[in-house]
């Protein structure tokens, strides 16, 4: 039985899948992966079902030792320096590792959320239909908490899961959602409590995600000034949506994300469309972007396009080919059984 033992872990590593919709009525937020596209990518690289739970790393990776079995891994989301036993491996690709080898993921460059996955997925218990970790409430994932040094993360058996390990490493091109400069929105259910000036300011100003960001939400900086609502904050709490742009009493906007609270009383001026949730979640800290107002029809068309692109993700896979001159230690690899050890650097 293979596993990854955690030697070092960044402060925000957790197991995540598409979350647990259906429990909001019990006060349980859907949660799940911050970048749904990247989860589909990392699983496509390995031939897993697109929603198989993967390790999400926030801004900082960690080191993992391969135990017990040959494993095939892949990465996606925010690019990190990735090394296996000190040799660089390209990001957004699959690679095979031997027992005893050490995988090291560095700091995220530009974007925030990175993903590490194994063929067949990690072995743990589903809670309310999902493997997602809800660390604030202490359930899901590995023992309901973030992954830390000393943990041993068991991997599902590929044989038992019917996953065929294709040892040929594959890669995906970087998707354009990681470099977006506009985020599309529709007006929120309480947009009418904001003045026309404030609503115009939302659409005409430059925004950036501040350092105050986490899985619950991202507080924005802007040159727009206060976006405070006309009326007070007497609104009765109602359901909060992922992507809601909430304006607190201080006039500052926060985009509510995967681990948002299920209900809230602050007015929400607009909502990021579903197709752009990955882009806003991954928006680099400090990078300028604008909000673009779209119609509901445009929002659904964008979602349809996204789904079509996602459905043909595997057609973007290309083989990772290695130039022989890059392979300094060619003779040390066992090429006979087709297991290609990592080290490709191109």
């Amino acid at each position, binding site marked *: 039985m293979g596993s990854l033992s955690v030697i070092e872990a960044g402060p925000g590593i957790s197991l995540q899948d598409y979350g647990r*919709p*259906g*429990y*909001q*009525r*019990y*006060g*349980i937020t859907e949660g799940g992966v911050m970048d749904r596209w990247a989860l589909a990518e990392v699983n496509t690289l390995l031939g897993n079902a697109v929603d198989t739970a993967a390790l999400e790393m926030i801004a900082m990776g960690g080191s993992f030792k391969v135990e017990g079995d040959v494993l095939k891994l892949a990465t996606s989301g925010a690019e990190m320096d990735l090394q296996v036993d000190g040799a660089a491996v390209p990001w957004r690709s699959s690679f095979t590792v031997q027992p005893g080898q050490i995988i090291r993921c560095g700091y995220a460059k530009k974007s925030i959320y990175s993903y590490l996955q194994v063929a067949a997925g990690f072995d743990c218990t589903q*809670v*309310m239909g999902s493997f997602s970790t*809800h660390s*604030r*409430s*202490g*359930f*899901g994932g590995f023992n*309901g908490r973030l992954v830390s040094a000393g943990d041993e993360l068991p991997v599902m058996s590929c044989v038992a899961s019917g996953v065929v390990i294709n040892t040929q490493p594959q890669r995906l091109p970087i998707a354009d959602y990681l470099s977006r400069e506009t985020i599309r929105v*529709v007006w*929120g*259910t309480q947009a009418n409590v904001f003045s026309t000036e404030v609503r115009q300011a939302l659409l005409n100003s430059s925004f950036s995600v501040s350092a105050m960001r986490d899985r619950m939400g991202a507080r924005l900086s802007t040159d727009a000034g206060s976006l405070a609502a006309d009326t007070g904050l007497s*609104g*009765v*709490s*109602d*359901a909060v*949506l*992922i*992507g*809601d742009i909430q304006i607190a009493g201080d006039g500052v906007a926060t985009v509510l994300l995967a681990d948002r*609270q*299920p*209900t809230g009383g602050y007015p929400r001026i607009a*909502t990021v*469309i*579903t197709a752009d949730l990955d882009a806003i979640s991954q928006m680099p800290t400090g990078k300028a972007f604008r909000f673009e107002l779209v119609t*509901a029809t445009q*929002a*659904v068309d964008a*979602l*349809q396009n996204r*789904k079509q692109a996602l459905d043909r993700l595997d057609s973007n896979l290309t083989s990772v080919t290695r130039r022989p001159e890059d392979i300094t230690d060619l003779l040390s690899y066992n090429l006979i059984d087709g297991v290609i050890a990592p080290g490709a650097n191109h």
Partner: protein
Amino acid sequence: MASYDPIFPDIVPAGDSAALVRFSQTLDFNVNAALLEFDNYIASSPINGVTEVSPALVSLLVRFDPLQVSYKEVETQLQQMLQLKDWLLKPVVKDPAHWRIPVYYGGETGTDLNEVSQLLGVSEADAIEQHSQARLRVLTLGFAPGCCYLGMLPEAWNIPRLKVIKPQVPAGSILVAIGQTVMPSAAMPTGWRCIGRTPLNNFNATKLPPVQVKHGDTVQYYPVSAREFKKLQAASDNGLSVIEHV
């Protein structure tokens, strides 16, 4: 019957994948009951493509997959349901459970009991009596898993929230403000005053449903001593039920 704003209930889009059914813009005990009855009705006649329905205090979020069903179609079907009858007229919450829930009032756990009794202009003992004599309804669950919002307390309990948020109150805290009681199942920050603590943990991730006390249920609290509380808390920590189903 109270007169309600004629524009309600209404249905508005929420993001690109949900419809929000609003019964009112202010909290009202009767409107909340109407909403819960409507929630029950939707559960009995599901709409194609709808993925989740979640009731808040006076509004109901209906999430759908826009690649399966259009907002227009969901809105039309919800509108038909709303027109079946006057939901605000004598609403009936279906099969509510009634619970008696122990609370250790005051002491080291209910640090704001004294302040609350002063705001009410009564003694601490009278404040405890008023709170524990009220028959409350679970108006909604929200904020965190299993966290109940109950109402309505007597008129005098319409006390404001704190100006400064407390960074953390423990699980089981009995919090009061604006005519309601909040009963969280985990430690959380709050702007409400804490008058006591219950050993009940209303959230269990391994059970379906994951909560014991749910929407529409009625609740009456009863005071227990510090000693009794400790005993019940130990039982609760061992997974035993500490509330009485009446």
